[in-house]
């Protein structure tokens, strides 16, 4: 976008916004331009490190040290340049004219101050209202966002609410001041799929009602395309493409945008790979898992049942996806299968044997492995990559050092890492590279079964795609059975042969992938599917003939 497209009624005009680490230092954001008209919505989309969050923060003058805006930058809000405004005037704009909603609802409300006080603060400061008036307005707003018992909510503290509720409360407290512009920095990334939808709907509803403009920061093109008409795609500090969302999605001009679109969840080609044909590797029969309650002198926590009598089978060469919201018991079940959690009752048979004897357990451990969600904490920070990958092989006494080394080298190439990485430590690797190492460690011993516990949800979209493809490729080569635990139907759609949907510790629906996604039987599955906001297939398919047909 260039200067000539400056709109007359533009409320926010960002011109040549450049953010550096210290004056003259490395550029985090490089000559960014965009305009936002009053009451309009725009999204900045990019992956981590693209500079999108810092660009948004600079609009409120909230850059963390030592970041600064370069002198040529202009951020014109209603004609005033925010980069050169004096602090007192800027504080009059913050909150009153421009509101901001943050990413992590767990840390962006002050844990030591009541909800009522945190809501009242802005009203007192900017609108000079009396106590009664503040209370009335706060209550009305809480009612509007459907908080049960609003009066009680005012005296409660943030920790008494769930993440989704906190994000609603945060939104309410910001919109209470009727700002002209709302900046929302990844407001739903930390939330469950179903809750994400609620919060976004609420955001759109509240801003539309007041005619408030929205600047949304997101990594999720699919979600953006459902809500926001205009989009700016950022990569490495530069805006590489901008325009109406539908156009950017349909006909991406830039290579990076195309890759970003490619990374969007899409069903893997080829369909079924003979699901149901392999021999059963894991058979779970009527498994119940309780978290024991505690009895203390004056407090008692009730035992909590995480898994209620679940049956499932995973066959060799297939991927069974276990999908559900947080707290549904899916992770607990996955951990029970690999022996990290002991089931309260029921059987988990592995390759036909139950393996109660310790000797069996050692044997079956080598045949099953796990890949965790967070690649930052799943690798021992004090070991070198080659040692981390070789570790499972050390349990195999038949293998000598030379055999181990050659196997490790082979695995390096299988997961797409150069063997040079072997001498490095985990902190020297990127998130995607670490996850490749975690996968290498899982498959190096040629296991019969791998649990992948949310293996991509901490990664950027383009990296997610690579990791999902890698898992599929390795499975085709080594024919292991895979239990893929995830909350993200988009990721699941790309790797699963079969899908099991879990809700409150029970499996409510299980079936072939296409059946579950195209013809969901259970209402909860339908809800999940609706909320997943899978991108419109028209845009997702980059095949030009299909695009033409769709048009």
């Amino acid at each position: 976008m260039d200067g000539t497209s400056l709109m007359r009624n533009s409320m926010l005009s960002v011109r040549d916004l450049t953010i550096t680490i210290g004056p003259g230092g490395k550029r985090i954001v490089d000559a960014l331009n965009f305009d936002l008209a009053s009451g309009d919505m725009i999204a900045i989309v990019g992956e981590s490190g693209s500079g999108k969050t810092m660009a948004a923060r600079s609009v409120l003058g909230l850059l963390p040290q030592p970041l600064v805006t370069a002198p040529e930058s202009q951020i014109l809000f209603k004609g005033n340049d925010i980069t050169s405004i004096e602090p007192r005037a800027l504080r009059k704009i913050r909150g009153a004219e421009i509101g901001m909603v943050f990413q992590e609802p767990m840390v962006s409300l002050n844990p030591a101050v009541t909800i009522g006080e945190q809501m009242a603060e802005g009203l007192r400061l900017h609108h000079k209202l009396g106590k009664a008036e503040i209370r009335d307005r706060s209550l009305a707003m809480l009612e509007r966002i459907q908080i049960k018992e609003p009066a009680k909510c005012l005296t409660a503290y943030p920790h008494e609410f769930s993440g989704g509720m906190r994000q609603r409360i945060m939104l309410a407290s910001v919109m209470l001041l009727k700002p002209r512009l709302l900046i929302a920095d990844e407001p739903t990334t930390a939330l469950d799929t179903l809750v994400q939808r609620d919060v976004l709907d609420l955001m759109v509803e509240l801003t539309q009602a007041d005619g408030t403009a929205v600047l949304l920061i997101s990594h999720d093109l699919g979600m953006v395309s459902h809500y926001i008409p205009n989009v700016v795609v950022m990569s490495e500090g530069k805006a590489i493409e901008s325009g109406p969302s539908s156009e950017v999605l349909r006909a991406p001009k830039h290579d990076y945008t195309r890759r970003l679109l490619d990374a969007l969840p899409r069903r893997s080609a080829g369909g079924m790979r003979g699901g149901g044909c392999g021999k059963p590797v894991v058979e779970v029969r009527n498994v119940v898992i309780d978290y024991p309650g505690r009895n203390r002198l004056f407090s008692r926590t009730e035992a909590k049942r995480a898994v209620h009598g679940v049956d499932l089978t995973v066959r060799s060469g297939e991927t069974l996806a276990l999908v559900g919201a947080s707290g549904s018991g899916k992770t607990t079940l996955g951990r029970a299968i690999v022996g990290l959690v002991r089931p309260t009752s029921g059987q988990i048979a592995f390759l036909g044997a139950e393996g109660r004897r310790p000797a069996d357990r050692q044997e079956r451990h080598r045949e099953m492995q796990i890949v965790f969600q967070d690649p930052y904490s799943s690798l021992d920070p004090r070991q070198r990559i080659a040692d981390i990958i070789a570790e499972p092989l050390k349990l195999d006494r038949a293998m000598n050092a030379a055999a181990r080394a050659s196997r490790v080298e082979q695995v390096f190439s299988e997961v797409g890492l150069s063997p040079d990485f072997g001498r490095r430590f985990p902190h020297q690797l990127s998130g995607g590279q670490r996850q490749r190492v975690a996968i290498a460690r899982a498959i190096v011993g040629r296991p019969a079964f791998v649990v992948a516990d949310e293996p991509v949800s901490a990664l950027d979209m383009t990296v997610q795609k690579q990791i999902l493809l890698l898992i599929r490729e390795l499975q085709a080569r080594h024919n292991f059975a895979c239990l893929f635990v995830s909350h993200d139907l988009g990721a699941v759609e790309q790797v699963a042969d079969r899908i099991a949907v879990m809700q409150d510790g029970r499996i409510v629906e299980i079936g072939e992938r296409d059946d579950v996604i195209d013809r969901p039987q259970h209402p909860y599955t339908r809800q999940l599917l609706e909320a997943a906001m899978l991108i419109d297939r028209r845009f997702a398919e980059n095949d030009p003939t299909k695009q033409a047909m769709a048009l």
Partner: protein
Amino acid sequence: MTRFILTRIASAIPTLILVSIAVFGLLRFIPGDPAALMLGDLAKPGQVEAMRVQMGLDKPVVAQYLIWIGNVLTGDFGRSISTGQDVLPLMLNAFSVSATIVLVGVFIAALIAVPAGMLAAWRQNSPGDVGVIAVSTILLSIPSFWLGLMLLLAFGLHLRWLPVIGCVPFSQGFWPALVYIVLPVTTLVLSEAGPIARMARASTIEVARLEYITHARAKGLSESAVMWRHAFKNAFAPTLTLIGFVLGSLLGGIAVIETVFTLPGLGRLLVDAIYARDYPVVQGTMLFVAAIYVVVNLVVDLLYPFLDPRVAA
């Protein structure tokens, strides 16, 4: 909330019991016969035997402990060997001296050090911050008793502004009493301000980088409102724990300052009793100080939910 208070109070009881066992057990390790020690060197064997029976030393150890702890609970800590006085009033008199100095000293130290540490953290790496770090690290490194001696040298001996030794109770007039505690209190303020400032700074830095601080700024609050309304409560919680720790450990560590200024406090009472092998006083004082420390920590824990409501949940 009520449940939190009850649980916390109840959990202090086993600690107190173990502390009393530890004090009782420690004094069992003393070489020699306690009865003979009680009577001194000139006692005849028959007298020692009679004393043993009188002290209950012929009974099993558990019974001895139960008798002792039973007496302690009724306020009977025994008698001093060297002076023959009851131990409890001795301790209470000495405690009033120590407590006055410690409470006033730590209160003033916190009043200076907490804001200094927080302001330093708010302007991290500014010259002011470096100054606060330098001063607090130097204060942290000077032993309180030497600092006391230096103040004594400067203000007592050279300038002759203040009395060098002794103390006057506040019951004999406010000003005379104040004059006597100025130097010991100043010593305490200076030596305790260091660690408190460093802790306040560290926890404020931790809090200042959290998202709710940015959120408070995004509301348009002024820097001072952000700091006092949003950062203070959260940053002060760990500092409060440290202040409780300092208050408690001073009750044992005050002995050195009381020695410098010849004050008849609790620490001096304990050290003199150790010199004199006056074991009932040693036993009583150790139990008394440890019990007060447990209570101080209990009070800190009970105050905690006001700073961080998540604790009581």
